[in-house]
């Protein structure tokens, strides 16, 4: 008897498989996104019905000095984090891209902060950066310098938290860069060496250009990750001093879950959405004009 493959198949079959995910996405992603857009035009404390205030929340945001500062902080945090993570992640990947005894230990050790709780990381760094007993300030004092107030100085607090976030996450990007490095054909590098290229020349003229897809991928995910800074800010500065380390994500939390200003928090979330949207367009631009041509 001839067996007919896929007898059970009909045009609806793929939809049956996709449906659970689609329903999940609609209920848990799309619906909240659309609801948040509506809520951003309302005043609502979770109690009672939302009160429609038209563009009131957006008008309040744009006229708030604190909010302008928070947007600036968010962008500053993002720039420090993206540049820091890419440079440190790549440097670590190059350093550990060697076959020596015990290298697995170093790879694991560098990766460890990635899987450590952000709150624990924040508390430990708070201790290390402490002005009186912190090991970092004690070391600075030991060489005769006056250490700064890392988390209490309005000019330093945001960058300090961003750098701690870089420290925490670099191991993750290191692994991605490492995969990129190991995909490079060693023959090309060997040829360059035979032709007299120095290590630096090989790195900048061969390794980096050949890793452009990886670099672009890491750039994309670091930009996305740069906005996920709630936990460390909560553990280290709570947005202080005087909003100096407050970012859009932390401000959404404050307004939604401390002040219960759901409408205002939704408006902030949409400003964040707008900024992330701009970054995404920028990403596509880079991809189209640089990455694809170099690939």
């Amino acid at each position, binding site marked *: 008897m001839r067996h007919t493959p896929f007898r059970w198949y009909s045009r609806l079959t793929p939809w049956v498989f996709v449906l659970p995910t689609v329903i999940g996405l609609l209920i848990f992603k799309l619906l909240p996104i659309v609801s948040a857009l509506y809520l951003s035009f309302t005043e609502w*404390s*979770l*109690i*009672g019905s939302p009160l429609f205030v038209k563009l009131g929340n957006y008008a309040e945001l744009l006229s708030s000095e604190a909010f302008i500062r928070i947007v600036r902080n968010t962008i500053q945090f993002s720039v420090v984090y993206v540049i820091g993570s890419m440079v440190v992640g790549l440097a670590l990947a190059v350093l550990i891209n060697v076959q020596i005894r015990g290298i697995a230990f170093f790879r694991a050790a560098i990766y460890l902060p990635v899987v450590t709780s952000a709150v624990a990381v924040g508390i430990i760094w*708070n*201790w290390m*950066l*402490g*002005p*009186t*007993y*912190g090991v970092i300030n004690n070391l600075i004092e030991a060489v005769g310098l006056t250490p700064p*107030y890392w*988390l*209490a100085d*309005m000019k330093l607090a945001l960058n300090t938290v961003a750098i701690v976030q870089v420290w925490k996450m670099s191991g993750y990007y290191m692994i991605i860069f490492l995969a990129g490095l190991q995909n490079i054909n060693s023959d090309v590098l060997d040829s360059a060496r035979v032709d007299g290229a120095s290590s630096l020349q090989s790195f900048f003229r061969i390794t980096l250009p050949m890793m452009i897809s990886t670099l672009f991928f890491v750039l994309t995910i670091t930009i996305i990750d740069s906005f996920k800074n709630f936990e460390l800010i*909560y553990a280290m*500065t*709570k*947005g*202080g*001093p*005087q*909003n100096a380390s*407050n970012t859009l994500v932390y401000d959404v*939390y*404050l307004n939604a*879950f*401390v*002040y*219960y200003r759901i409408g205002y928090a939704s408006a902030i979330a949409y400003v964040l959405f707008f900024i992330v949207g701009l970054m995404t367009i920028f990403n596509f631009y880079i991809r189209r004009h640089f990455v694809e041509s170099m690939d």
Partner: protein
Amino acid sequence: MKKLVTLLVVLLAIASLFGAGVKDTQASSGPITLEWWTWDPTMQEENQQIIAQFERQNPGVKVNNTIIGTSEYWTKIRIQANQNKLPDVFTMSSGYIEEWAKDGLLYNLDSFVQKDDTFDIFYKSIFDTNKAISNTDSYYAIPFALVTTVLYYNKDAFDAANLAYPTDAWTWNDFRNAAKKLTIDKNGDGKIDQWGYWFYGRYAHIEPWIYANGGRLLDRTTMRFSPDKNAMDAMKMLTDLVLVDKVAPAPKDMSAFQQQDVFPQGVAAMWVDGSWFVDTFRKKLGNDMRWGIVRVPSGPGGTNTLTYGWPDSYALAPNTKHPEMAWKFARFVAGEGIGLDTYMAGKIPSAKKLATDPLFSDPNQQPGKDMDLLIEQAAGPMTTSYSMGWSEWRGYGGSEALGLNGMIDAIVNSLMSFDEAFKKSADSINTVLKRLYK
């Protein structure tokens, strides 16, 4: 056809009678289920014991306890309120009573309070504090415990400095003089090892001094931030401790500490905060350090008999189907039917029989007879600065670095002058209050 219609009418009549009968039976003698929401996960076992005891005394009543951690409690219970599904009895914070009472989300308890022997069993002063916090003339919550603020002092440090222990009669000058003598560089390295006092912009660190000086932060008639001269004097005295007297560290110097660890670790010899830290110190310190509690020193403008204290309470859902039983259970769990062992040390039971239990001031545990102070405070006048939007304008929890808290920190961390900080505070705080009190 006629027979059929007649039959239908008879059947309908029987059905409606039966239905009414069933309904009546359910209303009169059916089991009652009460939903009880609380926010302390460590109390699960105790809560089950309380329920078992209540159910034994009230056959036909079943109580379900739902415990939600404090970080999620308010979001979840607000959603319940939004859906008209509030539990019959639930834990209520002083910080939200006004907002919830205004929004009609709390059962008005006046009829129960007046009808029952409530004030024979509970401290009226604590109920009245709740009434004042609600900004109405009614009782909307039944307090189960009161927390107050006190001055903690390290007896070992006082002995080492050859100083007499603080008393309730202390003035600001007595306090400042002691703080100066207790600020010590023990190893001569030019750094202070023991500070006389420790505070930052936290509500429990600032307001007790304001009220002990007869001051106020809010003008309750206009509901605007308008600290009077006594309040400003108290805050100036405190900030001067850091900037002028140099007997207290700037918060930026203590950033590596959890704020509640500075005093028990011996880094500061005196500290003002909530009475619940009695429990923390008993558990953490044991007898490693000898310590005591007294009233916050009186300022020149007032007297320290006015206490900064606030109750933790239970409230009833406005649409509870069993208000009498919910009230009975709330009274029971607020102290009438439970033991002192279910209370965190330093939280003052609102039920008189528990507060006057000799074990409350257990002489075998620190601070011994000093605990009597808490009972005195519970019976005396109390005040708070709670209002709608308090977390936002005061700077509390996740917003601790902002609001008034952040401004006071900015002064003592030398980021802003006193005058500049209070000008900015008045603007930003009143923006919040104007939004909520139009």
